[in-house]
């Protein structure tokens, strides 16, 4: 028996596109439409949402009908560790930059993302972190003069 979903990638992409189209479409409906002569802020987005929805539907149906010729996705093979840790590193930087300052925020971001690698070594990760903090200080604070403290208010900076 053939599988009902022949190309999970296309079906997934189709669902994602239709979902996004619906979101933008619903948000556009709240905006004034105007007329064709004087288009309101909602006119063009609503038309685009419609087009996006149709395209999503075509991709979705195509995914049900035609088999995938490329490599299939295996959830277990996804780099979950990298995905989570890199994203976390960036978010930690965003949270830390104001209260902690550039030095600690940069250090945390580099160190956390270094952990994303399967070839993580504590010593080399610490060395890289130190290097990058030094570099960020030299280039962004000394060199480019960004208005950022190296240490934030929480750590006794300004």
């Amino acid at each position, binding site marked *: 028996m053939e599988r009902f979903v022949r190309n999970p990638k296309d079906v997934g992409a189709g669902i994602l596109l239709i979902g996004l189209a619906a979101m933008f479409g619903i948000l556009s409906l709240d905006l004034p439409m105007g007329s064709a002569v004087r288009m309101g802020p909602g006119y063009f987005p609503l038309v685009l949402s419609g087009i*996006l929805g149709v395209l999503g539907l075509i991709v979705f149906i195509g995914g049900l009908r035609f088999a995938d010729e490329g490599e299939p996705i295996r959830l277990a093979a996804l*780099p979950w560790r*990298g995905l989570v840790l890199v994203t976390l590193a960036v978010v930690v930087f965003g949270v830390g*930059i104001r209260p902690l300052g550039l030095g600690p925020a*940069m250090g945390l971001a580099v160190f956390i*993302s270094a952990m994303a690698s399967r070839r993580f070594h504590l010593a080399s990760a610490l060395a890289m972190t130190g*290097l990058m903090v030094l570099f960020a200080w030299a280039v962004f604070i000394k060199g480019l003069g960004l208005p950022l403290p190296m240490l934030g208010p929480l750590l006794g900076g300004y």
Partner: protein
Amino acid sequence: MDILSNLELGFSVALTLQNILYCFIGVLLGTLIGVLPGLGPVATIAMLLPITFGLPPVSALIMLAGIYYGAQYGGSTTAILINLPGESSSVVTALDGYQMARQGRAGAALATAALGSFFAGTVATLLLALFAPPLADLALKFGPPEYFALMVLGLVASVALASGSVMKALAMVVLGILLGLAGQDVYTGIPRFTFDITDIADGIEFVALAMGVFGLGELIRNLEDEHGRTVGVQKVTGLMLTKADFKAIVKPVLRGTVLGSLLGILPGGGAILSSFAAYSIEKKLSKTPQRFGRGAIEGVAAPESANNAGAQTSFIPMLTLGIPSNPVMALMIGALIIQGIVPGPNVVNEKPDLFWGIIASMWIGNLMLVLLNLPLIGIWVRLLTVPYHVLFPLIVGFCCIGVYSVNNNAFDVYAMALFGVFGYVLAKLECEPAPLLLGFIIGPMLEEYLRRAMLISRGDPMVFVTRPLSATLLALAVLALVVVLLPSVRKTRDEAFRE
């Protein structure tokens, strides 16, 4: 001659000490990221955009342009020496270049790539100087309908020339436009798609989107197969070409240059497509096609000339019409807008020093690249041994500080993280992110011109077909779309990309 005095002005701008320095930094950085796999020009330029705030516009653009064409040079070095294309445009170079290196002719391959690129760069620079001003003059006659039609054509062409599914690429363009529309509506001031978050009131930060999708998304993808790449670098000997080599490469270089220059102008074209097309043409024209893939010097000469020519001429639509033909050009437009310059036909006339300075700097930059790449090849080879797990945490750090420094706003950092995950998901679903970025940049302009066109025509959509220029442009767009959707063309297109 007008053009001579223009070029003189250009060189007088480009040859100031400061601009030579920025040009040098640009091509050096470009070569560096071209050599390092996993870091492309789009991500690098996005990272550096905030830094260009403080520079004068000419210096900023000279540096960013240098990164772009420098990356083409660097990418071919790795392609030849370790069979690992540093840039997607040098994928083809790896086919024959690496074989040449294995046969002990790495030096000849590198010299061919460098000289071919230099020649192509010189020709393309001249073409840019010749054709950009008249094109800009023509563009000054454009009304809103023509601009709208031109942008539609540009977007459709970028879809047609992208690899993978046409439907998905189209969807990416539309999604990009929708994302680009977020923020306050220009005419009414009503916020759109902001979810009542004040940080999006002025729109989604372009740098956050570009760095998230291209920088972080790409980076996460590289973490997928992280197994220890043992790099076997081929020895470089004999940089000199023999007489027979010269004879063999003259025609391929010429053909590659012409083809690359033409394809570079097309929206969605640029370096990648040019190199693929040049390679297949050489193979078709060759009397001994079986040599291709086994170390044919023509197989290095043609695509290398083509990708460099394409990289240069893709500046033409950007500088004259303000329309980006690829993501790098979209970033350049971003850089101009940051500087308060509205890209478009007026740039040539109102800012001749900027326009001609950039053109002249490209030629200087190409010369620098030949000097950088041939004698210093040893340094670049050593860089190849930097493992990715050392590199990527530093890239993450750069992305963070880069996006934060645009507005000093932590929200942009979170947005980048979100777009990073989104970009990774898109890549996994085989949706090309490049059309998304183009749509994002063009979206707001597209809507504005549509609204203006409808206003002057009193709501009659026929205005787009009754005006000959806009009708022609739209007809071309429809034609391009129909052609790529034809089953037979689709098949050959898929094959061309797979080769």
